[in-house]
């Protein structure tokens, strides 16, 4: 264990420079300015992830955000265990009908001010599962969505770009 720890200390950091915030995400967010919320939250956001029926591909890449290369916590973004602690809901999947009520309840349990980020092609419009008897299709058909991050699944860098845009928006820098 000592060797592993020592090497981590003596070798350079793996963490990569922050990508630039996604311009299209900033544009999408610009239409939803909320100054009061901006003042209260500063540059720290607590994220609650909700899988609303994804294939689990998006979850794998959301997990990757916490590894040494992306190190999401350095930006003041962190994942929390309860919607009651969250400022942001990160929602994946085509919203299966079996998950719709749980998603609504999670949204209602999240205190204001709050943002919803729909992650992945399914969360935008149901993706390849659209039209199934078992899917609602698109997160915005169940709860209001502030930002969409495309991809199947979006890469950790894409996720980071979108979340950094949200952070810029919330902290009122633009």
């Amino acid at each position: 264990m000592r060797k592993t720890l020592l090497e981590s200390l003596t070798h350079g950091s793996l963490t990569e420079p922050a990508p630039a915030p996604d311009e299209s995400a900033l544009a999408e967010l610009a239409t939803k300015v909320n100054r009061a919320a901006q003042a209260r939250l500063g540059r720290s956001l607590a994220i609650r992830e909700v899988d609303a029926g994804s294939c689990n591909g998006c979850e794998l890449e959301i997990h990757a955000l916490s590894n040494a290369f992306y190190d999401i916590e350095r930006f003041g973004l962190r994942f929390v265990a309860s919607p009651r602690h969250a400022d942001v809901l990160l929602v994946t999947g085509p919203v299966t009908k079996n998950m719709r009520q749980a998603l609504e309840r999670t949204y209602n349990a999240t205190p204001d001010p709050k943002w919803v980020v729909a992650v992945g092609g399914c969360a935008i419009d149901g993706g390849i599962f659209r039209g199934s008897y078992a899917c609602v299709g698109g997160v915005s058909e169940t709860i209001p969505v502030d930002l969409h991050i495309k991809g199947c699944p979006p890469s950790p860098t894409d996720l980071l770009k979108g979340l950094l845009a949200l952070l810029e928006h919330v902290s009122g820098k633009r």
Partner: protein
Amino acid sequence: MGILDSISHIHTVSSHRPWPRAVVTEAGWQAAIDRLVEGSLTLLGFWGEPAAVHMAMLDGGSAEIAVVTYECTAGAFPSVASRHRPALRLERTIHDLFGLVPGVADDLRPWLDHYVWGKSYPLSGRNASRDVRPYQFLPAEGEALHQVAVGPVHAGTIEPGHFRFTANGEHVVRLEQWLGYTHKGIESLMQGASLEAAAKLANRTSGDSAVAYAFAFACAVEAALQIEAPRRATLLRALMAELERLANHLGDIGAICNDASFALMHAQTGILRERCLRAANVAFGHRLMMDVIVPGGVTRDIAPDGVAALRALLAELRKVFPRLIELYDNTASLQDRTVTTGIVKAEYARQFGAGGYVGRASGRDFDARRAIAYTPYDALSFEVPVLQAGDVNARVWIRIREVEQSVELIEQILDQLEPGGLAAALPPRIGHGACEGMALTEAFRGDVLVWLRLDDELRVERCHLRDASWFQWPLLETAIEGNIIADFPLCNKSFNCSYSGADL
């Protein structure tokens, strides 16, 4: 002697490949169940159609496979689950989707149907309605018992499902799972889909096993059409499958340790997992390698710098991973959590035909890559680790050994790669009616089964995908019994069953 020799059948279906399928009488159906009950055959799959049910069975000794079909002329079939428990959730699913009634079933609670689809029996083709009843969990009675309800939304970034614990103080008396939350209706979307659209769906049945599903789907189509993918394509398929296995095992070994509060391992294996995904991205243009495997072959060749990226990955793994194994093995506080925790009895692993590390950590020596020896694994050399202890620790060790095997396999494949074609041409149409194919591949968590029937325009008429999780989830219920609730995340992660793969 073939499996079907001892099961009286009406006729065999000639267009079913590569293994035989026979339509059986009620006596034949019961004889097949007898063989499952006595343990001479293992249930591989159990699925429905609007007017028939199919059972795939494996003879563990000879690795022979056969499918038996019972035609439900009166909308009913003799229950398998009432005699052979591993069939239970599959049987409830058949009832949920097709409205076929198993007789005489002792448990006909809905499984996937949470009464919110807006229709009952969605694949039956009929407009029947179903009585809505509150879901009844199985009882656990006693003076000091209390219940803990968890999910569907969990505390971590994981898939949704409901766990109902009954506990006596800290100790779990009974765990009952109620899943189906991620049911997307994949089998209905498959119906009438083009091969291209269907392959996309197969890739997204369980995202962590995208390659294994695409591989199995492609092999099933190729079996049905009697075509073969070129040699280079099959090697690239196996290369991706082993990369997927590596990435998942590495991520999960760390996550298991993290659930025992040993974050160092999680951080270290997280780096290795990321390196795998980046190498995959360089080699195949997608971190999870989705949509590269298609019926007939692969859509793209390995990128020119892909081989170097993979060789660098192997060198890094060989350098770092042994040290992490040592770290796992020599950290007493970690061993204290994983050794003797969450034991799966060998008897259950055999009865349920548990695949992957869940089965192999409990003495079930089965790996589809070796047993079926599908191309190109027939020409590759590797070992299948098997342990007997059945605890969290044994499941971790199986994964550690499989990481080592996958590293060797990737090296062998890179050495064997020779120039060649990437895809065999598919016929424009079949011309002699429907044909059926079936395939089994080894995903990181166990065997994936794909069964399908194509119409003569090469559209999917019916496709069933069976994840290894179907036969592993119930064993998690047995493994946690008598353990403390606080060890559930650890046990759960050591299984890492797929929700999406089993909810379909």
